């Protein structure tokens, strides 16, 4: 298949205080044109680092991409210089960050912040860029955009700022939009507005979205495909339905069953005991082994290979090995098995 | 030329031809505070007034010369009335200097409303009624029109004294306090009078042409001065520089032609620019007050002798001061004033009245200890906190401590304003002080030690001394007797060591070889450049 982007065996290390944090440990990922890929996973599992690697924004020092390739339209972005990356960023690939309160420069007018990218990538004149900025503000649903282009971020509410951030990201019609927890800092009612907006925009522009979140509700709402990360690795990937209705990895099970269901009665949540691994001393075997209720001796020292479960779904778990005992997913994942 | 000892014999290097550009440049530590003779109390102001204005006499090379007075006045038989005839001299606005200007100037000095600061000189010299006019309790207080001065006509000034004139009468007339003042200019300028170059009139060898406050000023030759031919310099430039190091740098770069040297620099210049170095003895005498009024121990003569003997004057003048100062055991300085016989006052006792050396100091101290029944003594040494006295304070304190075992000295260095207060309130045991003359007579050094004199902050009192000075004060008719009385007074005083004389100040400076006839006289203008000139270089 002809992927828009293909990541293979990406490894990112941060060198800090005499320790090396192996934030991303050999992940593979593909993204197709116009699709929405969600990356979910525990905090610190390497989601943001992965997305920053794509943007070429891993701070160096202390960060370093030690190996792997990120093919974007056939070209390896890892090998690109900063200069070359600057031509990609904002134009072909753009990014939305988690906290709209801090993602905008407090001393620069909103309009100018939108215009910068336009001027840089599309060579628009100041005047045209401003016109376009107003259009964009309109597009993301900011009322009265002619007036508001000349305002400063602090004059906007959180939800509106996130719209501005989206407008900046979409300014040059990027092929890929990376949204790193775009709604985590927002209230549910505002979150709903933003999710709606993103969906609308994607329909209009056909941009592929990488959505990073740990809110499975958001994933269910927006994504087509899901990758589940744990301990710097992708432990399972599949289509939305596969992941929600036929998950194969115990971590995915845990994730799903630790969430209460709004529309069903849950007596007791299934808690995953313990805490995620310390990535400065990553475990030799499966990163989830220490917290896995089904952990076997093999899990501790050996990293499982991916098992292709379908054309679209694969998972890395020893339970999927034919030698492993058969285990049923817990009933608490609620919707499990229906798919 | 008693001032610049190294002046003669040195003609090497520079030629003696006048340079075409007659310009002399100086650095000075303070701006001119005021040009008003009524308010001038400091050397810079006095020097500026001296150089730009004229009185009846002018000091040059420690001797007075007739300036606006056309030679000797007519003296009455009782020697109390002096009638001066004035020379033709114009103010810088073209009007002639008149006898009335003198009368106004003198009256103004005795008018409390004009806030005169230094008018006690009128009483010192004995101008008729001056003492009474200045005394708040006297019926004549403030009635300056009763002063013994009168303009007989535009060119004739009559001065009346209370008693026959003292020998320093003519020399004191060279002081700004006795200068003529133009009433119309004073009235016109009000509070701005004499605060800038153009709110003042000039009648001296120079005019002040440019006075930039805080930066410096320039004198230009006064072509209208009656004796202008004697003035060779065209311009004299003063820059205000407070840092000694900076002044030295200016000299090294040729931006100024003269710079006074503090001790540190003397050695350096001795090595590098010995030929440019000059030295002169000044008339300042420096001493320690010994407070025997509130410190009973110090009433003991042996203790006072011990203190006198304890301090090594040579070390002080050679190592600490190192500027041509001379160690002293006397009160009236050398080379300051000559008596009726033409001999210097000091020639009678050239070395003064030494109490002995360090070893004798110990003997005195031992005796004193026995007499007083003490083993140790704590002395509070009051001094000034200027950077120039720092070293001296420490040296003196250390000498006493070192040579009189058991005596401890704490230095109390204070700013001048506070020093004065503590000194006058007798809040000290030893206090470092100095005295510069008000007039050219030994009296200016001696009368301060009389019992009632407020300057006598020692508590020492001697009837005999008081009467000797009293007869010198009134007995101005017999010059020789008066002289002998003064000599006897000094001797008498020094036999009781009420103070510790330390040194007579000197001035060491470097000047460029092309500068000639520049002097630092011991009485009169502080820097006398009126007759100086520049040779080709």
């Amino acid at each position, binding site marked *: 298949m002809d992927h828009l982007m293909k990541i293979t065996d990406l490894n990112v290390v941060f060198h800090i205080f005499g320790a090396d944090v192996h934030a991303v440990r050999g992940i593979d990922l593909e993204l197709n044109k116009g699709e929405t890929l969600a990356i979910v996973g525990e905090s610190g599992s390497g989601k943001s680092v992965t997305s920053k690697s794509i943007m070429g924004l891993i701070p160096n020092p202390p960060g370093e991409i030690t190996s792997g390739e990120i093919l974007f339209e056939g070209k390896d972005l890892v090998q690109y210089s900063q200069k070359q990356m600057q031509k990609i960023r904002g134009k072909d690939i753009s990014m939305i960050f988690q906290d709209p309160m801090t993602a905008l420069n407090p001393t620069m007018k909103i309009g100018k912040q939108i215009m910068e990218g336009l001027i840089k990538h599309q060579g628009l004149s100041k005047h045209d860029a401003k016109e376009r900025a107003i259009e964009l503000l309109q597009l993301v649903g900011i009322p009265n955009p002619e007036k508001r282009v000349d305002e400063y971020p602090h004059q906007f509410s959180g939800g509106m700022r996130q719209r501005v951030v989206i407008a900046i990201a979409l300014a040059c019609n990027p092929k890929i939009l990376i949204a790193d927890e775009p709604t985590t800092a927002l209230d549910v009612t505002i979150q709903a507005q933003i999710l709606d907006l993103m969906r609308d925009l994607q329909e209009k522009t056909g941009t592929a979205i990488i959505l990073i979140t740990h809110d499975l509700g958001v994933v269910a709402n927006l994504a087509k495909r899901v990758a589940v990360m744990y301990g710097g690795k992708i432990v399972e990937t599949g289509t939305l339905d596969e992941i929600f209705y036929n998950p194969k990895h115990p971590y995915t099970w845990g994730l799903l069953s630790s969430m209460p269901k709004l529309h069903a009665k849950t007596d007791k949540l299934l808690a995953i005991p313990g805490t995620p691994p310390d990535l400065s001393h990553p475990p030799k075997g499966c990163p989830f082994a220490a917290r896995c209720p089904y952990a076997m*001796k093999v899990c*501790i020292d050996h990293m499982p290979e991916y098992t292709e479960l379908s054309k679209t779904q694969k998972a890395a778990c020893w339970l999927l090995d034919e030698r492993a005992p058969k285990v049923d997913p817990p009933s608490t994942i609620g919707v499990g098995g229906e798919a | 030329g008693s001032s610049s000892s190294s002046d003669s014999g040195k003609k090497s290097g520079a030629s003696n031809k006048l340079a075409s550009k007659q310009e002399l440049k100086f650095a000075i530590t303070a701006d001119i505070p005021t040009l008003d003779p009524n308010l001038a109390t400091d050397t810079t102001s006095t020097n500026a007034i001296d150089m730009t204005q004229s009185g009846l006499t002018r000091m040059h090379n420690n001797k007075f010369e007739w300036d606006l007075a056309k030679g000797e006045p007519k003296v009455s038989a009782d020697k109390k009335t002096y009638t001066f005839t004035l020379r033709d001299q114009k103010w810088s606005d073209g009007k002639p200097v008149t006898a009335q200007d003198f009368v106004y100037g003198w009256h103004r000095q005795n008018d409390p409303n004009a806030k005169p600061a230094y008018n006690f000189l009128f009483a010192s010299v004995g101008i008729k009624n001056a003492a009474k006019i200045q005394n708040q309790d006297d019926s004549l207080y403030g009635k300056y029109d009763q002063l013994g001065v009168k303009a007989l006509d535009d060119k004739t000034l009559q001065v009346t004294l209370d008693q026959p004139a003292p020998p320093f009468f003519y020399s004191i007339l060279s002081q700004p306090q006795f200068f003529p003042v133009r009433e119309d200019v004073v009235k016109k300028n009000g509070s701005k009078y004499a605060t800038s170059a153009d709110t003042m009139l000039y009648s001296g060898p120079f005019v002040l042409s440019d006075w930039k406050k805080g930066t410096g000023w320039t004198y230009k030759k006064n072509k209208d001065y009656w004796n202008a031919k004697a003035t060779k310099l065209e311009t004299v430039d003063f820059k205000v520089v407070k840092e000694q190091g900076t002044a030295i740098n200016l000299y090294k770069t040729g931006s100024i032609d003269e710079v006074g040297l503090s001790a540190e*620099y003397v050695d350096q210049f001795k090595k590098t620019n010995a030929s440019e170095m000059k030295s002169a003895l000044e008339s300042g005498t420096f001493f320690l007050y010994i407070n025997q009024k509130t410190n009973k121990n110090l009433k003991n003569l042996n203790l006072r002798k011990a203190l006198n003997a304890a301090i090594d004057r040579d070390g002080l003048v050679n190592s*600490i001061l190192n500027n041509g100062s001379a160690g002293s055991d006397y009160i009236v300085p050398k080379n300051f004033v000559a008596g009726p016989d033409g001999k210097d006052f000091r020639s009678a006792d050239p070395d003064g009245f030494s109490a002995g050396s360090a070893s004798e100091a110990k003997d005195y101290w031992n005796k004193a200890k026995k007499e007083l029944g003490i083993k140790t003594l704590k002395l509070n040494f009051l001094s000034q906190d200027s950077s120039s006295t720092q*070293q001296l304070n*420490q040296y003196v304190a250390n000498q006493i401590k070192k040579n009189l075992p058991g005596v401890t000295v704490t230095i109390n*260095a204070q700013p001048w304003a506070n020093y004065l207060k503590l000194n006058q309130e007798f809040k000290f045991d030893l206090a470092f002080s100095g005295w510069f003359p008000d007039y050219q007579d030994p009296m200016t050094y001696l009368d301060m030690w009389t019992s009632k004199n407020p300057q006598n902050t020692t508590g020492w009192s001697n009837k005999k001394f008081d009467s000797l000075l009293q007869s010198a004060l009134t007995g101005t008719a017999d010059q020789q007797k008066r002289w002998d009385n003064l000599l006897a007074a000094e001797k008498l005083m020094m036999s009781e060591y009420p103070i510790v004389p330390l040194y007579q100040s000197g001035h060491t400076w470097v000047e460029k070889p092309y500068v000639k006839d520049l002097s630092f006289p011991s009485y009169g203008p502080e820097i006398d450049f009126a007759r100086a000139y520049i040779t080709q270089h």
Partner: protein
Amino acid sequence: MTSSNHDITKDLFTLADLGDTAADKIAGESVSAWKDALRRFVTNKGAFISMIIIALIVFFAIVGPHFFGYDIDNQDVSRANLPPKISGLEWIPAFSGHENGVDVYKEKNVKTAYWFGTDQLGRDLWTRTWHGTQISLIIALIATLADVLIGVVYGGISGYFGGMTDNVMQRIIEIIAGIPNLVWIILLILIMQPGLLAITVAILATSWLSMARIVRGEMLKLKNQEFVLASRTLGASDRRIIFRHLIPNSIGMIIINTMFSVPSAIFFEAFLSFIGLGIRSPQSSLGSLINDGYQMLQIHPYQTLYPGIIISLLLICFNIMGDGLRDAFDPKLRR
């Protein structure tokens, strides 16, 4: 990874017994926030070296004045202005006893070697320099301690109680800050007897302001932190909150600020000495030594050099150490 697959045997596919709390185990020894900061501080080479240098200077300030048995006022003008000389190290130009190519010791016929030379009164500069260091350090210490006390108490009260109290106290600070430093200090020194106490009071008069501001800021920040609220909901008294929670948590900031106020006190004393308002002779401080030497800067530069080097070292080291401590206490860097 494929290669290792060979070792994977069937028996590995049995449930591993990880124990209940395996995942909750914390590795390594217990580290308090203090130890953690200390550890980070020690690994900061610059800061650590600075600390050692400061310790050395303090050591010499204590023993240095007694090295040669001179006291600070041991004058002898016959040995005035000798350049530094260290027997055995004469081959180093700085310690040869020569000045402008002349062997001054020979010239003045002096046998003893003076390591830092002598001053104009022939006093041993080694003794005076270390004595001066001692005085400067004492000034800095007193000033800093008092600064800390006043500043911490003032800022603490102002920040903790807030409201009207804070308002009034802040107005007072504003007024005090409205008067320039120099003015305060000169007025104070003029009114008081000059000397150590006056200098200390003068430095104090203003230096605590920044400490008060910092502590107030910390208090404002901390008093609404959840752990303080938690303590309040547990019924803790103001005293307990202040001493158990607020002060221990602001102490990092206080220490850091202290590190910066020590050198500024030393520096300020030097400035006072320069304008003639410093320590009184024959006592010396680094500032007064530099000032005395400054008169001789062009003639005998060595008289300024050593006090200058020491004061610079002190300032540099305190600054670097302060920076190091700031990093060490920086919660952002803690893992």
